[in-house]
């Protein structure tokens, strides 16, 4: 049974007095507890897809089911963006507690949960800092903490590590994998980076140019294998992905 299933999704935007399709006949599915990665050219509608899944955009046609519920009904999703996800005017503590506050948790419960998640992710010592006082990697860890504190089932990540340098990026990939292994999270992650897709994605979806649709689905047994980064199969999968992306232009 698939946790996430999308069928014939179609979305259009009204732009300059004309309606332009952003996504067209897009279908994909993801089993519970797996990591899916979407890779595709800029402007092909990846962020649009995530906004639908996060329940932020209801102007779509087709079927979208998360655990058999519509995205609007499902409050077990969490969205993590590339940048600007954390509010610069709130400290780490307040940023992480924000979701709990919004969802009406009591003050006491908010404190307990916030403290718990910060400790678990080794971020407690950063609780009084503002985002401007944190490194890019720390900021993304805190963004993840803010999502996890709500105990989501589906984590939607929109190019979460794109603005990080190569080393922090690999650290964050490892960090995400560890988290995922400890939990039952289903993750759908968007990336521009082929190695990241092969390292993290049990399922890899390649998207076409705009209007975006899935043109290739790949099951990837190498995903989550820390030693895979050096293996020959890793390079082969990467190269095959690279050529299907090249084929787009």
């Amino acid at each position, binding site marked *: 049974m698939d946790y996430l299933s999308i069928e014939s999704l179609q979305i259009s935007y009204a732009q300059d007095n004309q309606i332009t399709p952003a996504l067209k006949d897009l279908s994909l599915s993801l089993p519970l507890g797996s990591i899916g990665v979407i890779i595709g050219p800029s402007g092909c509608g990846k962020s649009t897809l995530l*906004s639908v899944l996060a*329940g932020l955009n209801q102007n779509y046609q087709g079927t979208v089911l998360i655990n058999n519920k519509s995205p609007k009904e499902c409050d077990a*999703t969490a969205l993590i963006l590339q940048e*600007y996800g954390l*509010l610069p005017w*709130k400290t780490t503590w307040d940023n992480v507690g*924000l979701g709990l506050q919004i969802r009406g948790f009591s003050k006491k419960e908010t404190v307990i949960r916030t403290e718990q998640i910060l400790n678990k992710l080794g971020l407690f010592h950063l609780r009084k800092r*503002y985002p401007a006082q944190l490194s890019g990697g720390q900021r993304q860890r805190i963004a993840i903490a803010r999502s996890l504190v709500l105990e989501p089932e589906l984590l939607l990540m929109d190019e979460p590590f794109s603005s990080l340098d190569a080393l922090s990026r690999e650290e964050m990939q490892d960090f995400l994998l560890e988290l995922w292994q400890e939990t039952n999270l289903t993750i759908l992650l968007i990336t521009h980076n082929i190695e990241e897709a092969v390292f993290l994605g049990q399922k890899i979806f390649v998207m076409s140019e705009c209007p975006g649709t899935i043109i290739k689905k790949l099951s990837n047994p190498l995903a989550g294998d820390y030693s895979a980064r050096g293996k020959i199969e890793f390079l082969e999968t990467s190269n095959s992905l690279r050529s299907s992306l090249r084929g787009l232009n």
Partner: protein
Amino acid sequence: MQKIELMHKSFNILTGVIILIVFWYLLSLILNTPALPTPLTAFSSFFELFTSELMPHLTISFYRVGVSLLIATVLGVPLGLFIGKNKKADEFSAPLIYITYPVPKVVFLPIFLILLGIGNISKIVLITLTIFYLILVTTRDAARNLPKEYVLSVKSLRANEFELYRHVYFPACLPAILTSLRLGLGIAMSVLFLVETYATQEGIGYFIMNSWSSLAYDKMFAGIIAMGLMGFFLYLLLDAGEKVLCSWIHL
């Protein structure tokens, strides 16, 4: 750390005051006219008159400016946020604001005097109207330019419209709002002076002009010093407010 900063600031202010007074003193020597008394004469007149004559006028002026700033903020900030965040409201109001914003509101003084009387209300309305526009436009522009990712990420936590205003729009625009208030304060003081020179016998503006017309230049300068200090005090208040409310800006 903060203490050092405070000392540094006080030192800067002191230096500024000394330079100003020296300049004033030299100028009064050069011009050698009763219309520009020396700083010593002016300040001794200021201290002499402070509790007796200046204080009642200052109080009423302070009230006029303070209330105006308050009303302009309470009206301008929510409206500016709303317009900046609502495309329809923005499109509707933009031409209206565009046309009326550059019109100097002080030209309506005669009309307000007729319609609202010569009491405090006409004065407060005029000062309020002037700063209101400034706050409205600044807040609107700040809200317009807010990165949409902030809104998306908080919306995805299932925030409603009110929570977006509370956690995103308002705090994001607060630095711009406080800047517009500081600019507005300077303008408010000018408008205050103007409205207090017509059809009133109260307020520091009246005191200054009245001293002027009776050739009491030392009294006039006592009034100018009082007005300057009042503006400075309000400015410090806003500055402190920004330090407390927007500490994240100064990281």
